[in-house]
């Protein structure tokens, strides 16, 4: 391709991505070596880099800008706002994501993506190889990049989905399996899920080269088995979560309960609906009385 002239378009993001794009211009990323320049007018551009989720006011401007740029009109959406509107998803003035308005060719997830990720993504798109020799290509220890599940540890409780700051995690229950799915294209990379997971099963890794041409692929997920209710047979809770809860009650919280492990377990294996039947309420009450007698030392 001939010279690459990039025009930046920003609407309704936090500005973080836009600054990181400017940062790509500094000598150490050698953007000029790739034959790339950043221009200030869409008439001079043939590549459009979008950031932000686009609001009502930006929509028309975006359409106009897209019309104006020259072929081949390659559009790269940088940052999760430009992928999915991220944390602003439910904001009332938002009309994006941008690919609902104009065609988008590539997506660079991140919040914001490292300049390294942006430079590498552009190079990949141009088919240029970049040698990642210098230290700064490696994300430091503790970096918050793409997620990873520890499949052994994840019990499917869905705490991460509850605490997530950007509604990036979905808990999807099938007939006998539960899927916990992180959409890192919708994520703010806050790592709160990592901090709050009761079993330290979700972790943000140092992987940050995440460019893709299909934003349906920006997912990481884990699957766990669901348990059937011992009364009605319907599935209702992950098996592993029951094991975890039982262990927590009988070994960590109240070791004195351990002799009742079996009874507690059978009580827990009854689903929320069946628990309300008179017979089961009576049994649960009986168990509770025995448990409290135990700790009070009767």
């Amino acid at each position: 391709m001939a010279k690459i002239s990039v025009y930046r378009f920003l609407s309704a993001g936090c500005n973080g991505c836009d600054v990181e794009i400017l940062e790509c211009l500094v000598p150490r990323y050698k953007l000029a070596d790739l034959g790339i320049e950043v221009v200030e007018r869409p008439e001079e551009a043939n590549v459009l880099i979008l950031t932000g989720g686009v609001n009502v006011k930006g929509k028309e401007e975006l359409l106009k800008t897209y019309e104006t740029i020259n072929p081949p009109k390659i559009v790269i959406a940088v940052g999760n706002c430009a992928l999915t509107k991220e944390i602003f998803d439910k904001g009332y003035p938002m009309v994006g994501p941008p690919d609902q308005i104009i065609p988008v060719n590539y997506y660079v997830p991140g919040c914001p993506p490292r300049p390294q990720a942006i430079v590498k993504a552009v190079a990949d798109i141009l088919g240029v190889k970049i040698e990642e020799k210098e230290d700064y290509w490696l994300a430091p220890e503790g970096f918050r990049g793409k997620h990873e599940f520890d499949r052994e540890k994840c019990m499917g409780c869905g705490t991460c989905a509850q605490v997530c700051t950007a509604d990036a995690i979905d808990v999807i229950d099938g007939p006998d399996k539960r899927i916990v799915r992180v959409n890192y294209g919708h994520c703010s990379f806050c790592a709160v899920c990592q901090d709050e997971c009761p079993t330290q099963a979700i972790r943000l890794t140092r992987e940050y080269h995440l460019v893709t041409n299909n934003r349906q692929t920006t997912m990481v997920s884990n699957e766990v088995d669901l348990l059937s209710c011992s009364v009605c047979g319907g599935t209702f809770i992950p098996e592993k979560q029951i094991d975890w809860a039982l262990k927590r009650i009988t070994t960590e919280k109240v070791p004195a309960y351990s002799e009742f492990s079996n009874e507690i377990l059978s009580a827990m294996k009854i689903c929320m609906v069946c628990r309300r039947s008179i017979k089961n309420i009576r049994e649960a009450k009986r168990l509770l009385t025995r448990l409290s007698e135990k700790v009070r030392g009767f």
Partner: protein
Amino acid sequence: MPETVYIGPYRPQLVEPERFELLVEGNIIIDARLELGYMHRGIEKLFTTRTYAQNIALAERICGICSGIHTLCYAQTVERLMGIDVPERAKYLRCIYMELERLHSHYLWFGILAHSLHEHEAFLKIMGERERVQDLLEYLTGNRMNYLINTIGGVRRDITPEKAEKIRRTLKELKPLSDYIMSLLDDNGAFTKKTKGVGVLPRERALDVGAVGPTLRGSGIASDIRKEDPYAAYDKLDFQVIVERDGDVRAKALVRARETYESMKIIEQALDNLPPGDIVAKPGEPKVGEEVGRTEAPRGELVYYIRSNGTNIPERVKVRTPSYANNFAILEMLKGERLENARAVIESIDPCFACTDRVTIVDAKTGRRRIIALR
């Protein structure tokens, strides 16, 4: 016959999308008006749909440049609502992280200024050296921007002796950058030539339009929330409030340049006196009521108002960002200015429209209606 000139939102491109309408006679701007809204995301509404804990990431994304100070201001206000006592160590750590943020934000401002003054070499040098702060922040917090280091009750990551050493080393490496910027601003410096006497905001006008931060301090008024209403550990740290008298773009630049040295001084002191202990307090419950918190963001005073109904979701969050207050100063500074200086003036207050655009369009009430708005 006066004519109307438009700057922005996308042609030519300012750092952020906004539209300035300038009424020009000959080459002189006689009136200015501002149209916003290209960044509006409805954040204040979104605040009332999530929990206190989740909202901190949203506060951070009001502005990606001064993201940390938004989380701090939000966290401090919520801490007051919840009656949480933040551990001493966390207070010092907050000062360190926030001054690092001030450094990167001020350097970025100089980069942008160099860009709008067409000083390409200076732009590359400043932005290139600024990477040192970004790398450091990434190493300390796990992200270069939007680092979510503050949390309700304290901070999320500690500074080990090893990390402290790295901070000290980086500060040493950054001194030459500040010196370089000072040299651009001395009597024959490249910045001085293009910014001296440009966009003057006299002391009285600065007060009238309610300017804050370096914009106000550049007009000779010593106002800094870190001193006036100290938060975190600022009352225990020794630093100076930088003031310049001239009120022009150069004065605002000088304020920022000299502030970078003060920030380094604050960080070094905080590292030297870092008390031992926890970095985060136990969470609390919000009482029914309201609280106001303020902090000194890199661009000036930042205010949060939060009203609670006792649930885990706030009833109202109102944010007054520094750039919002400073917008009126830009319009003031543009009047009487030469057209070719307009861009430098606009970028001199470091307008952060991501901040401002939480609210709907503001009409600069000039009283005069001679400008015909486009569309």
